[in-house]
């Protein structure tokens, strides 16, 4: 079918509608839909032809003669995809705005058809004046369609739009006519052949006019007002379709201007991207926020267009990925906004009871922030690599900063949607849902297509991810069935793949899969269907498993982002976990971006299509320390080293009973695994004379000390355990940074031990919190008789964690002492020595305030924690005993494996005694001796003290008085007051205040920037003209 029919059908149907009389509205509506489907079919057919045959672009001549004497249209692969996007958006917008169109009558339908036809025209035409005509058609059509909205401010918004578009059209016209005067042709290709040298000023006017159509940052007040007030159906068209058409038009124009104009485009693009995102932060109106976000995305694509000189053949892939991700997501979000009554972001909570709509929102948010497996992710990967290769690091930094801010406000919005309360009901009819569903399907399809096009592993074909997404399909099944499936899946995966891993990775794999399966046992306590839990949990586990499997940087990074997203959704399920989940995702994504930059830098220095992780070892010197620094920072956001730790307490404490152990026991190990890989491959690095590994040593020691110290003063049991996780991770980081054989063995011992006892403690505290309804320790007490199993689990947990001999914690400490014997630097050891006994303090606080002391009245009839929560704890007790008696089973092979990297100082494991260079340790002997002594003395006490009278809680020597009430005689509040007086200065919340100041700075910057738009159309016009002058000065100065 000739591409001209696209325009012919649009125009023809519009006039045909004019002929119909007023009453036959539904006929007119079906005609409109028919026309739009025909146009989409045409572009789809062209797309199929191009994809199948891979033929070149086809020119369509009008008026029978070749240019420059007639207008010609071109239909290439990009034009076909763009017109398909535009027509589909138009079709779905028409479906979405069904009643409004029927109410307003056939003229509105005609205007909509004209708008879509004009957009196709912009994409197809190769003639510049024709481009101007189509742009003006868009202006008029937008003027008309804005009035469809029921918001009475739409009229003023429309008028502001018309004012600015008048200016634009004037500049464009002058530019075109002088361009014609200089080149003698109106055909873009003709002009491009001659080059803009001759008519620089005229080309500037054309260029700035089309850039203005893209709503550049300072001069886009008018666009925001339209987004805020127009009907969401139309806003979807305005942002997705008009945006993409204008971007493609600019791309065509830039061909005339040539590379000289690329920096200008980049500058405008990056300013728009960062500026719009910053101003979006303080927004509360949802559609205005979407307006800012679409402006930001258009700015990003403009930057990409500005960088096409260095992107080479990846250019279309990246620009296309970002464009389609933006268009589909933005259209979808606008259509979703039609279901919500109020315009505040928190009002979106009404969507909560429709899981499908929540899934749609998640898809769109993930597409916008460029998370796997959507096209934005592949595009961002290629873009960052290209920029790093061309050494444009400042631009790279700004893009990632802008992307982080955008992810921040999008996930904040998602937090409102899931966590806030709204009594509104979701009013959505069938025709309104169809476009959203189509957008979701399009999003996932695009993810699949871009995965294939990327040349790297297509994420949607990766088995673990498919398994996780499979859970989406069986959301209707009861929770226990899904739980069984999850456990089965994890253990099956372990059985399948455990052979082809070296011992080190095998330990991590076992912790991720088998460990996850054991914690899933605890998930049997939940009833009902638990919507959303299993997909996110399996997403996290898929990410973790892929992380271990990844050998190249792309696989590693994709896995890292997958597990971050999965764990974010898991943490968000907690009752008050919204702010903490947000800080978690922002920190993790910030860390992920650091890792992305590091891999990009590494790939830039040693160019290879897929950058192997092992290749990190052979990096050239000038870049290696930087890569090491960035990777270390990225991994430390995940192990919550001091300074990057403020997300952890909230995230782990507010998560659900069985999510806390998953996140704390397993997820932190991903960061450790990263550090293992980093140190294994890159070894010692120094930057400006500072030995980075030494710095890691200090950070590890400081984290161990401060983590444990902060844990002491917590009143909330789970927060105490969360801070203690920070401390333990500090220990492990310290062990790693020692860079000697035993240091790594200690870190590994910590990885195992920490997983076992932290999951056990979180489960037992979770069980107690479930029964007593509170997590504040001073409100519990005396539960030892009512919850004996939980007590035993906690007791074994704290004995193991404090390193007291018979149990496995002591093994970790023993290896630690041997490791530091031959370490070079000695001062950090001081901090570690102190954090040992401090761990002892908060462990006693945990067990005393919950299980010992006085039993409160309301807890007298409490039952033991649910069986499904107690069972994993008992398994952990068994494992702890096993590891305590025979550590060699696990560590022997790993010891041999580590000696490949750090040969000296290996332990020898023959017999039951483990001997090192300095000392020996015989766990079995210790256990037997301690047990014998204990039993002997216990027997002796039993013999001597047979007839002890069992007394109750108030039979205590209270200086001959009667204790008043259990609450007043249970010592638990402010447990270590003297310690706070003496060591309190170490735990002032400097880091929290620092990060708070950073976020406040961004918010106030956003607020100041917002004042720029005072709502006056004339001022907006003045902004535009000032913008033109500034850009001209910038171009002249360049």
């Amino acid at each position, binding site marked *: 079918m000739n591409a001209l029919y696209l325009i012919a059908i649009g125009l023809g149907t519009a006039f045909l509608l004019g002929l119909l009389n007023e009453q036959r509205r539904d006929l007119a509506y079906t005609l409109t839909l028919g026309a739009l489907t025909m146009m989409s079919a045409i572009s789809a057919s062209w797309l199929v032809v191009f994809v199948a045959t891979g033929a070149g672009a086809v020119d369509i001549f009008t008026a029978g003669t070749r240019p420059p004497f007639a207008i010609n249209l071109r239909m290439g692969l990009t034009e076909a995809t763009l017109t398909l996007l535009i027509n589909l958006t138009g079709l779905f917008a028409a479906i979405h705005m069904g009643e409004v169109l029927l109410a307003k009558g056939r003229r509105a339908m005609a205007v909509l058809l004209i708008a879509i036809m004009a957009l196709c025209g912009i994409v197809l035409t190769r003639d510049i004046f024709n481009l101007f005509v189509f742009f003006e058609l868009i202006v008029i059509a937008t003027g008309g369609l804005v009035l469809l909205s029921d918001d009475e401010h739409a009229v003023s918004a429309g008028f502001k739009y018309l004012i600015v578009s008048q200016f634009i059209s004037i500049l464009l016209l002058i530019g075109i006519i002088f361009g014609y005067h200089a080149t003698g042709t109106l055909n873009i290709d003709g002009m491009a052949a001659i080059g803009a040298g001759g008519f620089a000023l005229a080309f500037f006017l054309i260029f700035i006019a089309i850039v203005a159509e893209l709503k550049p940052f300072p001069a886009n007040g008018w666009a925001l007002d339209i987004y805020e007030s127009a009907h969401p159906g139309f806003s979807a068209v305005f942002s997705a379709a008009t945006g993409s058409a204008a971007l493609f038009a600019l791309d065509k124009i830039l061909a005339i201007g040539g590379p000289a104009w690329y920096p200008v485009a980049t500058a405008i693009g990056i300013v728009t991207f960062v500026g719009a995102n910053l101003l979006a932060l303080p927004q509360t109106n949802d559609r205005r926020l979407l307006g800012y976000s679409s402006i930001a995305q258009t700015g990003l694509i403009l930057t990409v267009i500005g960088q096409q000189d260095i992107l080479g053949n990846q250019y279309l892939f990246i620009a296309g990925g970002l464009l389609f991700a933006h268009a589909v997501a933005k259209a979808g979000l606008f259509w979703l906004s039609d279901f919500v009554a109020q315009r505040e972001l928190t009002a979106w909570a009404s969507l909560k009871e429709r899981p499908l709509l929540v899934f749609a929102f998640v898809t769109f948010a993930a597409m916008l922030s460029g998370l796997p497996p959507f096209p934005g992710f592949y595009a961002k990967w290629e873009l960052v690599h290209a920029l790093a290769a061309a050494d444009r690091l400042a631009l790279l930094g700004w893009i990632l900063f802008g992307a982080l801010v955008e992810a921040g406000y999008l996930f904040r919005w998602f937090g409102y949607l899931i966590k806030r309360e709204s009594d509104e009901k979701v009013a959505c009819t069938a025709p309104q849902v169809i476009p959203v569903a189509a957008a979701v399907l399009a999003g996932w399809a695009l993810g699949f297509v871009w995965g294939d096009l990327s040349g790297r592993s297509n994420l949607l074909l990766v088995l673990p991810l498919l398994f996780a997404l499979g859970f989406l399909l069986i959301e209707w099944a009861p929770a226990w069935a899904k739980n069984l499936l999850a456990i089965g899946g994890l253990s099956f995966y372990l059985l399948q793949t455990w052979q082809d891993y070296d011992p080190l990775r095998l330990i991590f794999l076992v912790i991720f899969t088998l460990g996850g399966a054991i914690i899933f046992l605890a998930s049997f306590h939940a009833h009902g269907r638990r919507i959303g839990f299993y997909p996110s949990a399996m997403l996290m586990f898929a990410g973790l498993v892929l992380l271990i499997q990844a050998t190249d940087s792309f696989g590693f990074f994709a896995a890292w982002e997958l597990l971050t997203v999965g764990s974010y959704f898991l943490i968000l399920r907690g009752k008050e976990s919204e702010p903490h989940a947000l800080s978690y995702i922002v920190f993790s994504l910030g860390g992920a971006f650091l890792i992305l930059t590091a891999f990009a830098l590494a790939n830039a220095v040693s160019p290879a299509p897929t950058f192997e992780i092992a290749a990190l070892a052979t990096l050239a010197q000038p870049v290696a320390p930087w890569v090491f620094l960035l990777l270390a920072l990225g991994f430390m956001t995940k192990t919550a080293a001091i300074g990057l730790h403020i997300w952890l307490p909230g995230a782990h404490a507010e998560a659900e009973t069985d999510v806390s152990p998953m996140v704390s026991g397993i997820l932190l190990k991903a960061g450790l695994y990263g550090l293992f890989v980093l140190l294994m491959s890159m070894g010692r690095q120094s930057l400006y004379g500072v030995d980075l590994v030494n710095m890691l040593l200090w950070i590890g020691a400081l984290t161990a000390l401060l983590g444990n110290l902060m844990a002491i003063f917590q009143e909330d049991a789970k927060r105490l355990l969360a801070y203690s996780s920070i401390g333990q991770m500090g220990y492990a980081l310290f062990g790693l940074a020692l860079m000697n054989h035993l240091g790594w063995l200690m870190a590994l011992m910590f990885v195992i031990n920490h997983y076992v006892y932290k999951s056990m403690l979180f489960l037992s505290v979770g069980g107690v919190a479930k029964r007593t*309804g509170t997590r504040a320790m001073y409100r519990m007490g005396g539960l030892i008789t009512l919850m004996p199993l939980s007590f035993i689990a906690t007791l074994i947990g704290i004995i193991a964690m404090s390193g007291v001999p018979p149990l496995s914690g002591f093994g970790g400490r023993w290896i630690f002492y041997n490791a530091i014997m031959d370490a070079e630097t000695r001062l950090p050891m001081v901090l570690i020595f102190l954090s040992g006994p401090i761990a002892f303090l908060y462990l006693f606080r945990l067990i005393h305030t919950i299980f010992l002391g006085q039993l409160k009245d309301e*807890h*007298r009839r409490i039952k033991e924690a649910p069986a499904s929560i107690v069972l994993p704890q008992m398994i952990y007790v068994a494992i702890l005993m096993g590891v305590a008696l025979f550590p060699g089973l696990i560590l022997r092979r790993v010891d041999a494996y580590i000696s490949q990297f750090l040969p000296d100082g290996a332990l020898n494991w023959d017999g039951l005694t483990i001997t090192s260079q300095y000392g020996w340790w015989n766990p079995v002997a210790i256990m037997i001796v301690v047990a014998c002594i204990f039993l002997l003395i216990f027997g002796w006490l039993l013999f001597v003290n047979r007839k002890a009278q069992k007394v109750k809680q108030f039979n205590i020597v209270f200086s001959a008085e009667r204790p008043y009430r259990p609450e007043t005689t249970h010592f638990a509040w402010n447990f270590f007051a003297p310690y706070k007086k003496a060591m309190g200065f170490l735990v002032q919340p400097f880091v929290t205040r620092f990060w708070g100041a950073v976020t406040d700075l961004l918010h106030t910057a956003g607020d100041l920037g917002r004042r720029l738009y005072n709502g006056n159309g004339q001022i907006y016009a003045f902004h535009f003209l000032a913008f033109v002058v500034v850009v001209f000065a910038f171009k002249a100065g360049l």
Partner: protein
Amino acid sequence: MMTKPELMKRMVKGPDGLEFEVDPLRDYYCEAPPTVMPGAYIQIVEDFFNWARSQSLWILGFGTGCGAIEMRPLMTPRFDAYRFGVAWRPTPRQANLFIISGYLSTKTLKRAIRAYEQMQNPKYVIGLGSCTINGGMYWDSYNTIKKLDEYLPVDLYIAGCMPRPEALLAGFEEMKKIIRAGKAEGANQYAENFAWYKANQKRVIHDWDMPDYNW
């Protein structure tokens, strides 16, 4: 008679919504009566234990009347009771000897009984001065205890309107002889006629808001 709110029976709602009744006296305190504790089976072992008990007399630091000031010099270099194996323990759990050093008002009696009942069998009581024998100079006071023996099984009285430290030391020697003789079974005597003792006590103490025997 039970007016104190914290001791009243009350309905309490558990965190899982289960309503149940909490009776402080039954739930907070052990209500078992005291039992007679026989000595070791073989007399020699009992004699040996009695000898050991006499050599390490741990006095409960509970000064009830003006006599308590007499006990302080025993800790000073001049009289030094430590030479005789006598020591002071702050808690009744670890004390064996309870010295009622002077007049006992009914209020103090209630606390003295609680402290006495928290001591472990075998335990001994020494009364100082005449106030414990017959009320002494407070013989007609409305709120003092006239005859200590009705309320607590007393093993030894040391006369003197407050006996001097030397008298106390002599008293301790006397007490040791009684213990070694095996006749210091005040705890068992208290257990055997517990009802009688408790009745006397309740006649004087009107708000006995505790179980009968206070472990």
